[in-house]
């Protein structure tokens, strides 16, 4: 049984769909096969994305290509920038002018976007940024990886700021989270990261072609020429330390609000779990299969799947792990999310990590073996 915990979102009408047989007038199929990158792109179009800026990089390129076709069709802004630096700064400008903006890239490109992310956070400019993660460091590989967890949740640009990070683990969920990401970005005037990976981006899955619209209001901070009002300035520079600290405190207050209101996670078979797997994104799908196999072998396993990586659902995880003998973080990294897991568990239950890197994906059997080791070591530690 899966329980998804999240703020109840209104479900407005279906307004857009990917290509149908028989053209636009043809019947709406129940399910269509869509690539993750394309589904994310179309979800953004349906959610009223006004402007998209990007730069080609594998395994994200189809997202840019989809937008290159769809945005002009809708009479909206599409620019293939000369670099990710330029793309995110175009996003900064469009956002300042009041546009609902999407940018996308993969790991190396996100590193280039880090500077402007910091400026946008400091200037309180909303944007949704999709990272279809690949293997690193450096040019790494084009295989799916989760090595950018720390970058997304604690890193990217300089200074005291955080951004919400949403991690879908299926294409259908990605479609929903794109729209939710715009909601969060605008509600809190902040950049939001949608953290996917090469498998989610490249895989094709049947999805209900129901992409939801998102209404838009004109906020009172956008730039449109100071007609009949005082000029507005969108900036992150506050040269006086007192003034900057005040600004920083205001940002922190927003982050506290986000942390209090926006944590999301999914709990699967946790009620009687002796071993709690913690995994997000593609790794969570492997973990889910591993839970089934473990249960078939008599191991009472369950899966805790964070959907918001920041704010990390720490208390819910701690509660979920209360009766367990071991907690096992499964990641496509050397062990990044596991740091948050340890902080959440606070030593109450032994925490272990199982990961693959470089574009390699953990196998369900590998995860089951890691569970057995974790349970044995947890026993040991408990003695």
């Amino acid at each position, binding site marked *: 049984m899966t329980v998804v915990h999240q703020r109840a979102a209104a479900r407005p009408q279906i307004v857009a769909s990917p290509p149908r047989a028989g053209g636009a007038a043809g019947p709406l199929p129940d399910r269509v096969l869509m690539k993750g990158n394309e589904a994310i792109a179309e979800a953004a179009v349906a959610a009223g994305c006004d402007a998209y800026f990007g730069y080609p990089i594998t395994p994200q390129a189809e997202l840019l290509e989809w937008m290159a076709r769809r945005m002009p069709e809708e009479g909206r802004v599409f620019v293939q920038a000369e670099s990710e630096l330029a793309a995110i700064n175009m996003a900064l400008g469009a956002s300042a002018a009041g546009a609902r903006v999407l940018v996308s890239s993969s790991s190396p490109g996100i590193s280039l976007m880090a500077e402007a992310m910091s400026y946008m956070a400091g200037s309180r400019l909303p944007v949704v940024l999709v990272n279809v993660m690949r293997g690193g460091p450096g040019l790494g590989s084009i295989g799916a990886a989760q090595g950018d967890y720390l970058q997304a949740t604690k890193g990217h640009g300089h200074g005291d700021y955080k951004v919400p990070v949403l991690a879908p683990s299926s294409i259908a969920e990605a479609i929903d989270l794109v729209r939710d990401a715009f909601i969060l970005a605008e509600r809190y005037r902040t950049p939001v990261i949608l953290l996917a990976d090469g498998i989610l981006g490249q895989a094709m899955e049947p999805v209900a072609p129901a992409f939801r619209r998102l209404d838009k209001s004109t906020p009172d901070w956008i*730039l449109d*020429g100071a007609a009949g009002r005082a000029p507005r300035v969108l900036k992150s520079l506050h040269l006086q330390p007192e003034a900057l600290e005040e600004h920083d405190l205001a940002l922190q207050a927003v982050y506290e609000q986000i942390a209090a209101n926006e944590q999301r996670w999914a709990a699967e078979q946790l009620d009687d779990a002796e071993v709690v797997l913690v995994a997000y994104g593609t790794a969570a799908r492997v973990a889910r299969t591993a839970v089934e196999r473990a249960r078939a072998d008599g191991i009472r396993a369950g899966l805790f799947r964070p959907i918001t990586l920041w704010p990390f659902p720490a208390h819910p995880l701690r509660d979920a792990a209360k009766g367990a003998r071991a907690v096992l973080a499964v990641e496509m990294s050397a062990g990044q999310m596991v740091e948050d897991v340890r902080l959440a568990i606070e030593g109450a239950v032994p925490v272990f990590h199982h990961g693959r890197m470089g574009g390699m994906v953990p196998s369900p059997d590998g995860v089951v073996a890691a569970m057995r080791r974790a349970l044995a070591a947890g026993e040991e530690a408990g003695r």
Partner: protein
Amino acid sequence: MTATEHVTEQEGRTIYRRPLLLSKPTTYCPGCGHGIVHRLLAEVLEELGLGAKTILVGSVGCSVFAYDFLALDSVESPHGRAAAVATGVKRYRPDKVVLTYQGDGDLAAIGTAEIVHAAARGERFTVIFVNNGIYGMTGGQMAPTTLAGQRTTSSPRGRDVETTGYPLPVTEMLSLLPGVQYAARASVGDPVLVGKAKQSIKRAFEIQLEGKGFSIVEVLSTCPVGWGLTPSESMERLRDTVMTAYPVGTFVDRPRGIAPKLPQPGSPTRSITEGF
């Protein structure tokens, strides 16, 4: 009683008033050209009646506080990225007037890619490029625009072209791009030149209003502090030395038929410098 006051009292004519868009006195160093360029910009936007539909894209340099002096809706950019930021603003709001205000470190060093590609795409905004040949804000280091032999805090023995390369003539380079509708270099070296600079800035905005493409005005300016000169010595150096290395003039005004001759596809032998 001075002559000016006499005229004012007798005929009630306005001899000078601060442009409304220049909302506050600037805080630049004495003899700095930034203040002059701000005033010209304010005058031009006011004369064209554009104040309430203009969005200023700032940059990082001594002019980072331009939004404090110019009464315009403004957005800050990371160092060098103003042309990308302006692309985003103008693409979303083509009905607004958009300008970047950038120094030479900002535009000609860290922001070279952004300015070249914005120009290549023919983005329909206006660039005010204030070239004082130095990184003013960070304490007078060498910029790509610094003249050969010029002493700066990071070229203490004078710029050595063998190791640091040659001054970068950005406006000439951009002039080769078909997306550039207007490109001119002006100077604040004396009152006549200031008047011409104003005309160039005005023309650049007119071009933007026509919606055809990219417009840039490079304004050669002074940095007495960074140059280690008095304000009047700086003006002399600007006229005698800087303007020799960087000739002023209009390089491109496509609507008026001024454009460098470019090699046409199929005739690769023609020189690209022919038009200069």
